[in-house]
């Protein structure tokens, strides 16, 4: 490790690390030699990347396929107004290189898949999971297990945060529990909180992503006790923290290869708890695109527009539809026309699909159309004055 040297500028930059007795220049050398891959440059990735770059992690890889959107700026402090529309990894690279010119930033402007994950991961010492969906979380976990890499994990939801260090190889060469030991399988889509129940308080990823960066630095430097075999929980609303013990699940089938994670997580497939007809039922309802809806509007076609979102969402933006939240739909059947076409919409099309299923199955409606892509698609393709959220 002594072959790793520092310039005068680097020594001055990292001096607050170098004077910590248990960290010192040895810890800094380990950071400089390290290659860390951060998957996701969003809410968690933003603070994590800034601290890892500032701290002097020598090589940082970024994986993301997304572009910067205005709705990111409430929490993704890596980006500024000028970055809107740019590829996140490009904008992040520019910002991080501005923050620390002594490090290397490698970008992977792509969607992580079972086909490319191992090829990308193998070039890094450690992976930090800052993703926002179950399929990618299981993919990151399994790829780390297969390659024997530590997975520094964090996850957030509304006011809640979780942090752990998975698949950590201890001094005896024994690997600690991984994500599957904690959660063997993901929730089926119907039980995942919908967009009306989502959201996150902006500062939470700042807190949790910073804890994640701290664990990355500890694992690399070997300083302190990593959060392996433990799950840290933070409830920002009540300011409560807990640490729970997690252990390897002897019943867990070992990971032997990467699989189809979209299928594993049931995305686009029926819940395994549903009956055999679920899949055919799922695809049986009618849909229209926002372009077709717009043609109906222009041509004066007679139809009713129902919005099944929540009132607080309607206040953010709406398309002039009649508001009947999904949870109240069964008590408001008389408000839904049976003699003209009815277009049902929500934010992106999932809840309106659920509403149509209920109305067709229980109340025998046959005149319902799901608006594909919902308000988001309409605001993107038809009416740009409508706010997206």
């Amino acid at each position, binding site marked *: 490790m002594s072959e790793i040297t520092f310039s005068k500028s680097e020594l001055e930059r990292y001096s607050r690390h170098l004077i910590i007795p248990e960290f010192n220049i040895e810890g800094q050398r380990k950071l400089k030699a390290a290659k860390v891959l951060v998957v996701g440059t*969003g*809410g*968690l990735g933003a603070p994590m990347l800034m601290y890892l770059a500032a701290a002097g992690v020598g090589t940082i890889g970024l994986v993301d396929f997304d572009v910067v959107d205005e709705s990111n700026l409430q929490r993704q402090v890596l980006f500024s107004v000028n970055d809107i529309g740019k590829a996140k990894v490009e904008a992040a690279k520019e910002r991080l290189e501005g923050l620390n010119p002594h490090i290397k930033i490698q970008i992977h402007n792509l969607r992580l898949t079972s086909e490319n994950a191992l090829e990308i991961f193998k070039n890094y010492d450690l992976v930090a999971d800052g*993703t*926002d*969906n*179950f399929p990618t*979380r299981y993919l990151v976990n399994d790829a780390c297990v297969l390659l024997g890499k530590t997975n520094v994990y964090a*996850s*957030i*939801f*509304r*006011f*809640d945060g*979780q942090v752990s260090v998975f698949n950590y190889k201890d001094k005896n060469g024994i690997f600690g529990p991984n994500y599957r030991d*904690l*959660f*063997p*399988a*993901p*929730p089926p889509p119907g*039980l*995942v*909180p*919908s*967009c*009306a*129940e*989502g*959201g*996150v308080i902006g500062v939470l*990823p700042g807190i949790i992503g910073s804890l994640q960066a701290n664990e990355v630095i500890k694992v690399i430097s070997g300083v302190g006790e990593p959060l392996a075999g433990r*799950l840290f*929980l933070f*409830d920002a*609303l*009540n300011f409560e923290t*807990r*640490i*729970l*013990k*997690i*252990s390897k*699940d002897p019943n867990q089938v070992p990971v032997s290869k990467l699989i189809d994670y979209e299928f594993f997580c049931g995305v686009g497939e029926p819940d395994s*708890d549903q009956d055999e007809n679920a899949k055919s039922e799922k695809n049986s309802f009618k849909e229209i695109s926002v372009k077709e809806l717009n043609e109906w509007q222009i041509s004066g076609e007679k139809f009713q527009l129902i919005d099944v979102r929540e009132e607080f969402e309607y206040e953010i933006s709406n398309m002039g539809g009649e508001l009947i939240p999904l949870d109240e739909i069964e008590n408001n059947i008389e408000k839904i026309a049976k003699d003209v076409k009815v277009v049902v919409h*929500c*934010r*992106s099309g*999932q*809840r309106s699909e659920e509403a149509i299923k209920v109305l067709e199955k229980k109340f025998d409606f046959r005149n319902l159309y799901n608006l594909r892509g919902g308000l988001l698609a309409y605001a993107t393709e038809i009416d740009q004055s409508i706010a997206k959220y």
Partner: protein
Amino acid sequence: MAKIIIPTPLRKFTGNNAFLETNGKTIGKAIYGITETFPEIKQHLYDKDGKLRSFVRVFLGDTDVRTLSGELTEVGPTDTISIIPAIAGGIKG
């Protein structure tokens, strides 16, 4: 009475209660007791075979009940039970 901590995503099924109290003498009875008071939460905790779902973990104090006696784990009057769901972050739907 023992305390059950309800995670944020499930609070809408418990009348927004973050904590519930239970007289259940075992983990199984304590958790199932929630579904008797709040039936809507049942499908989120149990699968069709009546088993606790695999994306929901139950802890007694700081210990996963799977490493104790599972649903038969005894619960004392001052114990705290945590229900921990998998969360992924972001906004979907």
